[in-house]
């Protein structure tokens, strides 16, 4: 083998080793950062194995389960496979105002951790179908802001002049 060829072989070998190391590093890292998508039934079946993993839990907000405290920004609700009671359910708690469309009976996705009893969510999204099309209940949802429209001006209660201290600034981004 010529000296140049030898040199090239060493270079290629070095690159291969570096590449393999990188693949190892990246894949190891990726496994630690995977976010699993589960339904309440899936999650309860695997509850022991996922103590520290970040999980995305998808399901329906059970009718009559929403407890929202505007002063402390704490939200608590029960998530099940269907909007009505029955079947496997998980209690979800989170801090922060839920999106406008959040309400009982709606499909929703939360991201966070499960301690075996309660799901601690740091992100909450209202589920809507990926296929973009006008939903059937448009008229219904538009009732929401009808009371605010200029034709029927809203009556504002005069609020108390007390300051609401903000929740401590977190580093976690919530969307």
């Amino acid at each position: 083998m010529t000296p140049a060829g030898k040199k090239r072989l060493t270079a290629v070998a070095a690159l291969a080793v570096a590449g393999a190391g990188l693949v190892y590093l990246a894949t190891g890292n990726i496994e630690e950062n995977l976010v699993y998508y589960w339904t309440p039934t899936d999650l309860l079946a695997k509850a022991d194995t996922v103590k520290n993993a970040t999980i995305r839990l998808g399901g329906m907000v059970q009718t009559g389960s929403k407890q929202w405290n505007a002063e402390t920004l704490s939200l608590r609700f029960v998530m099940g496979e269907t909007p009505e009671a029955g079947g496997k359910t998980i209690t979800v708690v989170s801090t922060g105002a839920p999106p406008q469309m959040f309400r009982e009976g709606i499909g929703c996705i939360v991201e966070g951790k499960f301690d075996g009893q309660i799901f601690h969510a740091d992100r909450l999204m209202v589920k809507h179908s990926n296929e973009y099309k006008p939903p059937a209940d448009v008229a219904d949802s538009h009732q929401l802001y009808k009371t605010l429209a200029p034709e029927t001006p809203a009556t504002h209660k005069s609020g108390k002049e007390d300051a609401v201290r903000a929740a401590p600034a977190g580093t976690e981004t919530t969307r």
Partner: protein
Amino acid sequence: MSLIGRGLVLLGLFAAIFGIVVGLQAGARKSAVGLAWTRRAAYLFSFAMIAANVAMEVALFTHDFSVSYVSKVGSLTTPHWVTFVSLWSSLEGSILFWGAILGIYVALFTAVYRSRHHDYVAYALAVMMMVGAFFALILSAPADPFRPIFPVPTDGPGPNPLLQNHVLMALHPPMLYFGYVGMTVPFGIAMAAVLCGKLSEGWLKPLRRWTLLPWLALTIGIVLGGWWAYEVLGWGGYWAWDPVENASFLPWLAATGYLHSTVVQERRRVLKVWTLSLVILSFLLTMLGTFMTRSGVFNSVHAFSQSEIGPIFLCFIGTMILFSLGALFGRAHLLEPEGRFVAVVSRESAFLLNNLVLLIFTFTVLLGTVYPLVTEALRGVKVSVGEPYFDQMAVPLGLMLVFLMGIGPALPWGRSDGFRVLKSLTLPVTATLAVGLGGFAAGIHDLLPLATFALCAFTAVITLEELGAPIIRRVRLRKETPVVAAWRGLWASRRRAGGYLVHVAVIVVVAAIAASHAFKKQAEASLAPGQTLVLGDYTLVFDKVDAINDPNRTSVVARLRVSKNGHPEGAMAPALNFYNSQREPVGTPDVKTSALEDLYLSLMSFEQDGSRVAIKAFVNPMVAWIWWSLPLFVFGTLLSFWPERRRAAEKRTAAQAAT
């Protein structure tokens, strides 16, 4: 209109296939007649594609709901600009628009090389037309935007509210498309070189310049995309390692690698195959990006719908990989290096390391992006890769790139004199230490932002020295005024100077990203009228809720008064917009921008009677600098793009040959 549109698409398909066949033949036989016909086919393809887009715009503006695409995204109530941008607001239309951009590029390319580089042009056009034929094929059947609809609807839903909600939607997608589609031209040029089996200086120069343009468009598109997300999505950030964001970032990384390796290639006459491979990789990644964004494999705003074009796309990408790899391996022996590496510590090594880091970066982002697809296919488990993965990989790689961006220009080509190198590093190292210690003294005790700012200072000083030295010389020796000297100094070495200006822009972006991540503050509260929310120095008082009616939407606006350290700073009004066609509202956060920080307010929800609103507030330091860096990116790239005068270029080539 359906008939005209379909006819034009078919004409384009025909022209492209004709161009492929004739072009490959003309290239192989070096036939002048064949080349002339290839050019005609190219022009015909361009005409057909552009005309088809005009036809679609006419259909959109005349509200011709008998055309399937118009019935899907058109609406009688949308404002004119929304009607215009509806062209690229959904799957079929965006692919049609894609075709028009390819048409523009192909026509431009054909016109520029009407009398030069005959050996290459036929091959290059044939390869570009392969891509053209593929898109025309998709448009003619699986994603036909001109399908006639019966019975004709009287109105349509309008485009996706997320896209109607901000005027940046008129700019961000076309820029990205100009970037994506533009990579087809360098791919054609590179493949022509491979197919001819030779890579002359004369053909390499155009390759670099035809890559710079799409690179710039891609850069603008990515930054505008971040800005759009920031202005619309309401979570206070601009980048989330979403598969679609990654799809645009991947070809950018590869193309950036190419733009650097080509410098080494020209200077040292090595890395020919490597350089061409990077061009090909950039193109393949744009195709992969198109596939990911258009086929609906990912849940995202951009993946418009589950469509059937996925498998066709994969086949095309596979064919292109086989074609380019086959050609590259078949001809690689003809592209032997003429020069060689002489020193380990040299500018070319810095370039090489930069290429390696960029490639690793590309690989890690690609891995994180496609990993969920692979696990779902193989293990049947639905997962996504969390942002921490990307952050953990991207931060060290990004910092390495910043360092290389600084140390590279400080090192000489070829063998270096260690003492002189160290001496030239005195000022940059001093600046690094000054920023590091100064930052620590000022209260930044986190290692990551501190290290980032210090590294940015290091690279900024070296870059500004490189930029400033010739200008200072001009002022001193030629007694020019600083402004004249600055312009002439930049102009005289515009290719290099342009590159350095882009480096400065990158440093600005990196510093802004670091600051906005490390020093971000956020707070959230549910407020009744008169109540306040305190965040850092800011105090927000909630007044009332208003509703504003537009033809296509109704906006609910929260009115707040802002003061900073007790001084009134005016009013802010974050809103939620309800579109007629969608249940979920789309937000319009209100952002008060200053050079140091943004105050960002997002309306989360409201009570129907206006008695309460939930507000999320963020203070995002320096975030606006990310968008403000754009003019510098544009100016630097165009400066670098501007051709040298022929005589100067010849002189330089001669001088290089002598060294």
